[in-house]
């Protein structure tokens, strides 16, 4: 039986230009929705799979503002049975701070396996899982897309430069999950009901964050220099002429 903790982060859902706050220190997310990284959706799915297979539980944790309970409830709706909210101004938390705050929670509990997303969709720091593992004195692997647990041995698969790479490591461990190996499940109606009702454990952290952010800027807008080669199938000749001119097709 293994109790799994999966850590997720509330981030703005943007697909086009990102707006910045007036002080240039954060993303202005008032007009967009929120989500978690695709990596974390996969991590939640794997947490539920491992917990089910071993007869354990899957707990979801987030460090973030009060509104981040929305993302916790999404994870409960698909099958996590416990939710921990470390309420904090996550904007000022660097990766080492987040790892230290999660480590505090893990130390007081009995989570054999801790999952995180490979890198958060917003800050993209690539370090929380690794720093957490060192804080807990556990082995860690990153970029993992499928995971199975047999006794105390984890088999983890990720993709490397020459094909799929397989690791075998002892549990307790920390694993950073990458999307692509599992299809996150959709919430059922029963799941949604559970998500509404389940009490969320709100706790605070003793970690004092030390952001190194000096400011955010939008990339310079690139003036459109697109040359439209035509409309519909008639453009084919112009396309191939262009391919010849850039040397991709020989004349």
């Amino acid at each position, binding site marked *: 039986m293994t109790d799994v903790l999966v850590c997720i982060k509330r981030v703005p859902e943007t697909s086009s230009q990102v707006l910045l706050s007036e002080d240039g220190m954060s993303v202005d997310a008032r007009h967009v929705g929120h989500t978690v990284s695709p990596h974390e959706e996969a991590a939640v799915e794997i947490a539920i799979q491992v917990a089910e297979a071993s007869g354990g539980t899957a707990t979801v944790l987030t460090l973030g503002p009060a509104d981040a309970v929305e993302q916790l409830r999404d994870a409960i709706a698909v099958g996590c049975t416990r939710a921990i909210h470390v309420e904090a101004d996550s904007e000022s938390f660097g990766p080492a701070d987040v790892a230290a705050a999660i480590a505090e929670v893990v130390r007081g509990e009995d989570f054999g396996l801790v999952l995180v997303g490979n890198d958060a969709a917003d800050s993209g720091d690539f370090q929380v899982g690794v720093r957490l593992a060192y804080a807990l004195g556990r082995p860690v692997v990153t970029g993992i897309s499928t995971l199975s647990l047999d006794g105390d041995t984890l088999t983890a698969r990720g993709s490397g430069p020459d094909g799929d790479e397989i690791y075998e490591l002892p549990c307790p461990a920390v694993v950073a999950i990458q999307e692509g190996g599992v299809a996150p499940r959709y919430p059922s109606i029963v799941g949604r009901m559970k998500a509404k009702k389940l009490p969320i454990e709100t706790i605070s952290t003793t970690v004092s964050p030390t952001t190194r952010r000096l400011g955010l800027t939008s990339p310079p807008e690139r003036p459109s220099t697109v040359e439209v080669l035509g409309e519909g199938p008639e453009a084919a000749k112009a396309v191939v002429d262009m*391919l010849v001119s850039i040397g991709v097709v020989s004349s």
Partner: protein
Amino acid sequence: MILVLVETDPQGVTLTSREALTFARTMGERMGDPQLEAVAVGPLPDTAAVLAHLGEQGVTTLHHADDERLAAYGAAAWAAAVVDVASSGAARLVVGSGTPRGMEVLAHVATRLDCLMAANVIALEDTDPLTVSRQVMGGGVFERMRLDGEVAVVAVAGHAVDPVPAAESRTTDVRTYEPALTDADLLTRVVRTEKAAGEDTSALTGAKVVVGAGRGAGSADGFTDLLELKDLLGGALGVSRVVTSLGWRPHHEQVGQTGSRISPDLYVACGISGAIQHWAGCQSAKTILAINTDPDAPMVTQAHYAVIGDLHEVVPAINEELRRRRG
């Protein structure tokens, strides 16, 4: 000393590591610390080619951790080998490339050195205090970040700079060493690699031509003409996240923030809107041709060339024209 973790392939030092070397050299010069050294872990496929690349980049010494326990990749053990050199040489900066492997090893290095790490770095902003600019929000925003401390770790975003040879090339000395490794360092090594045909991403990340397809492909069966175009141009297929999450194509073909970063000579983006998370993966293509029904799609306005139309009509016509000209 500025220390660069280099990754190698049968051609020598990988392109992204050569980019990191150029970036590190420029940083060192501006910081008044021009001593550029490199560290490579595990067996080198072609030592002469590696040394030629390093000499060209102005590297004085290659520290080569050659120990059979490092032959199989394992981030903790590789990091132990890097930290060994960084500590004994009092490195001011440890730089690597923003590949999955580079990023994983550097995260271990930063933790072991108890210092800050900046991922996806694209520019050096200031040397006092040391400040870098890096991509966040999948490349949709730049963050200025301060790297306080005696040592810092920097992962350079793929294709943020071109690899430029140093003003003077050098003969790089090789120092082979055996790093001190503990049992814990060796717990997380790759136990085996499985090469399923076409399953690895190197074909996509190294391709000169990538034919991309998004939701506009319409269904899993909508790829026939796109695959033919890919074959006619001798390239690889890359897709948007919508395509992989709908299960039309496998994830290893995904381009973008949570997929592969590509830098082909030509990217043909068919039926792809060009959301920032996709753009993050394809923006370093030299030429982008967008084929889209929507003339206002970001992919169209940011491309070099565009055809406005239904890809299911345009792509077969291009294939036909290519076949006709080949005779």
